[in-house]
């Protein structure tokens, strides 16, 4: 086997778990939407009512993008799937590039390979061909999902191409970030900032009248401009093609000219000692996680403020009772009032805060995988003290993030003159806590039992249960099956009452999982990478 193909195979194998997980997700999501739509809106009048009330609602375009033709199964699918999967495709591209380039360099493996008879160009091209193979798998998976859901083969392939066309652009972003940043972590943060900014631009373009041109400024908007099933504009594909080539060539040029093991951005290697936050393992963890905590909080704050502002534009046009029921099933209450709309968007904050809680547990696992935990626990530091401190930190950070969401949503709404009370919005924020702590607790349990697989299990569980919440009832699944997801048991504050009983049960599970996790962690070997 030649060196380039051996390298490409290695890179592809490294990414196989991620590729398979994303592939399943793309296929399942693509299948569910057309099937669910047919089930929920069988007649034209149903669909007209739906289009009138739901799809023309400014505020909903935030999440699903602009609906060009919500009256047909294919148009609806293009609207619901394209926007969401494009975001996931962006995340996939970013992770793939940073993992294949910056992580390899961080761990020193790239140095080892380049010390052999392999040039930088070969290394780079091998990584890219492995990512290309992964992207093709996503494209196939999504196409198969649509075709299985009853859409035409050609249209399915084009619609899947529209969402997957985002991948190479963010591979380019990830590749460039890998050249600029001196560490994997900073590369991921830079890349995430670009994904967040792209999403923000699309949100503004889709929701503010007169800002539609902004869609052209973000790769996530290009997907919409490809207009699958609604008068396709394949020429728009030139945009992602040109953008990714530019980014990848630029990254390759930088990669060819710099020292291995460094980044273009200077890493500060010396510093006068700062002795704050060194008094305990928990304090030190806070010190290490500070950057990512700030990034999470400011992103949530920005989105919360914008969503609050947009809530004023919710239409109060008459909506038929049957359609209201369907909307309620989609995970919400009546969205015709600002309060109803805010209650609906908080589902997404609950999702974000849950992912954050899992990320905190993943950070603890990271400390073990990097074997710094071995250094800590060879000091007079107890295992339950360390894990307990980590869990407490995660809980406080999750609480702070939740309240930030509530506070900033209120501030955004209040800035547009929407009358909604601050305590009620803080309650909506706090309402994120039971579900996210439940996931955090389960993540901790997974961490204690199967440390190496724990991050995948935790993120997977959150994603799957959330998608099930959005699609289960639309598909007509029996109630008990829909109720399996914790998201189904949330009282949507501020439109509904806080459901104390469900919250107590979820917190109970969270606390007992955390205790069980501590007990099990006390009894196992430390586990390396």
């Amino acid at each position, binding site marked *: 086997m030649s060196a380039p193909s051996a390298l490409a195979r290695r890179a592809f194998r490294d990414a196989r778990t991620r590729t398979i997980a994303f592939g399943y997700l793309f296929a399942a999501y693509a299948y569910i939407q057309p099937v669910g739509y047919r089930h929920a809106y069988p007649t034209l009048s149903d669909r007209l009512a739906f289009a009138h009330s739901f799809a023309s609602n400014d505020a909903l375009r935030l999440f699903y993008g602009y609906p060009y033709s919500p009256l047909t199964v294919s148009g609806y699918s293009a609207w619901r799937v394209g926007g969401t999967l494009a975001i996931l495709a962006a995340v996939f591209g970013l992770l793939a590039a940073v993992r294949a380039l910056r992580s390899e360099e961080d761990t020193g493996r790239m140095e080892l390979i380049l010390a052999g008879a392999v040039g930088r160009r070969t290394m780079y091209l091998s990584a890219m061909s492995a990512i290309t193979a992964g992207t093709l798998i996503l494209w196939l998976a999504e196409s198969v999902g649509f075709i299985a859901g009853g859409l035409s083969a050609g249209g399915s392939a084009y619609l899947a191409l529209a969402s997957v066309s985002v991948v190479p652009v963010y591979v380019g972003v990830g590749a460039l970030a890998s050249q600029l940043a001196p*560490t994997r972590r900073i590369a991921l943060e830079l890349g995430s900032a670009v994904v967040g900014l792209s999403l923000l631009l699309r949100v503004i373009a889709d929701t503010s009248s007169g800002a539609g041109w902004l869609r052209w400024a973000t790769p996530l908007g290009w997907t919409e401009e490809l207009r699958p099933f609604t008068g396709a504009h394949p020429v728009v594909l030139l945009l992602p093609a040109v953008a990714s080539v530019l980014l990848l060539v630029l990254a390759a040029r930088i990669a060819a000219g710099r020292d291995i093991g460094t980044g273009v951005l200077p*890493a*500060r*290697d*010396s*510093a*006068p*000692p*700062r*002795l704050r936050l*060194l*008094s*305990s*393992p928990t304090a*030190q963890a806070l010190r*290490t996680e500070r950057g990512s905590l700030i990034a999470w909080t400011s992103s949530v704050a920005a989105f919360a403020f914008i969503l609050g502002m947009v809530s004023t534009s919710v239409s109060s046009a008459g909506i038929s009772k049957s359609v209201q029921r369907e909307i309620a099933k989609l995970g919400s209450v009546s969205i015709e009032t600002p309060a109803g709309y805010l209650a609906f968007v908080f589902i997404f904050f609950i999702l974000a805060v849950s992912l954050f809680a899992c990320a905190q547990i993943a950070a603890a696992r990271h400390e073990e995988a*990097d*074997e*710094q935990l*071995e*250094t*800590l*626990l*060879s*000091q*007079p*530091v*107890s*295992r339950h003290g360390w894990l307990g401190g980590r869990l407490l930190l995660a809980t406080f950070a999750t609480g702070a993030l939740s309240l930030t969401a509530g506070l900033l949503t209120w501030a955004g709404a209040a800035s547009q003159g929407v009358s909604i009370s601050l305590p009620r919005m803080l309650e909506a924020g706090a309402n994120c806590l039971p579900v996210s702590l439940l996931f955090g607790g389960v993540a901790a349990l997974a961490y204690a039992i199967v440390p190496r697989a724990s991050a995948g299990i935790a993120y997977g569980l959150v994603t799957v249960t959330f998608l099930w919440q959005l699609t289960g009832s639309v598909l007509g699944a029996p109630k008990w099956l829909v109720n399996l997801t914790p998201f189904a048991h949330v009282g949507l504050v501020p439109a509904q009452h806080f459901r104390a009983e469900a919250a107590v049960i979820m917190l109970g599970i969270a606390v007992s999982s955390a205790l069980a996790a501590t007990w099990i962690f006390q*009894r*196992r*070997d*430390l586990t390396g990478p």
Partner: protein
Amino acid sequence: MKPAIRTEGLCKHYGDTVALDRLDLTVNEGEVYGYLGPNGSGKTTTIRLLLGLHRPSGGRAELFGVDAWSEPVAAHRRVAYVAGEPFLWPALTSAETFEFLARLHGGTDVSYRDGLVERFQLDTSRKIRALSKGNRQKVQLIAALATRAELLLLDEPTSGLDPLMEMAFRDCVKEAKERGQTVFLSSHILSEVEALCDRVGILREGKLVDEGTLQELRHLSVQTVEVTFMGRAPNLSPLEGVQVQSAGPNALRFEVSGSVGPLIAALAGVGGNSIKTLSSREPSLEEIFLHHYDGSEDRVRA
């Protein structure tokens, strides 16, 4: 007085692999104990069990009479550990790392630490991620030595150090011994162990195959006697525990296990007058070690 380290039938299995097999080990207070073995023989596993980082599959380990697995915190107050691979926090500088570890451990001798920084020539304002492996190893070593802990657990502590720093390390261990600290030194650098240790244990595939002072190990091991004769070398009748090789036309080399008495008597019997030179050499630790490891199973005295 409780021994600093005591293990009883200590076992560790990882799946089907036996990493450590019924280890009985006692290291008394004030002793410098050398723990020898090649890569993968179970040295690091032993230390992980002594620190309660991994759970014993059988038997028990105690530090100063405190169970290593069930009461790690109490045990660790009296212990400082240097890992074979320095796993520190990349974003902290050395000075910050010292501060952090000192606050976790307590009882750090700051002026001694400053002296060590000087001796090991470490720039403490550099972040860990910018340090070479040898320099990161110094950070660990300094932090551990500065605690003046009663027991130093050192797992291949000089890997990555240059020869000058290795000498500085040896001086530090000698000082620690003079102060009465106990040192458990796991290593595969034989000269280091030979120079520092009172007692040596040799580990092979998870089993302790030999243990004792250097003198005892030498006594038990093979010594080499070379004899040159005036004329042709005589034929000697076979002796138990002695192997004969020709070492030139007029010379013989004897590999002697145990006492050399019978060989001397035999040589005197064939005519002591014809002997021109006789030299005898004690085995180096390296030879003792290789004796256990030259692959042939039957030569190992378990």
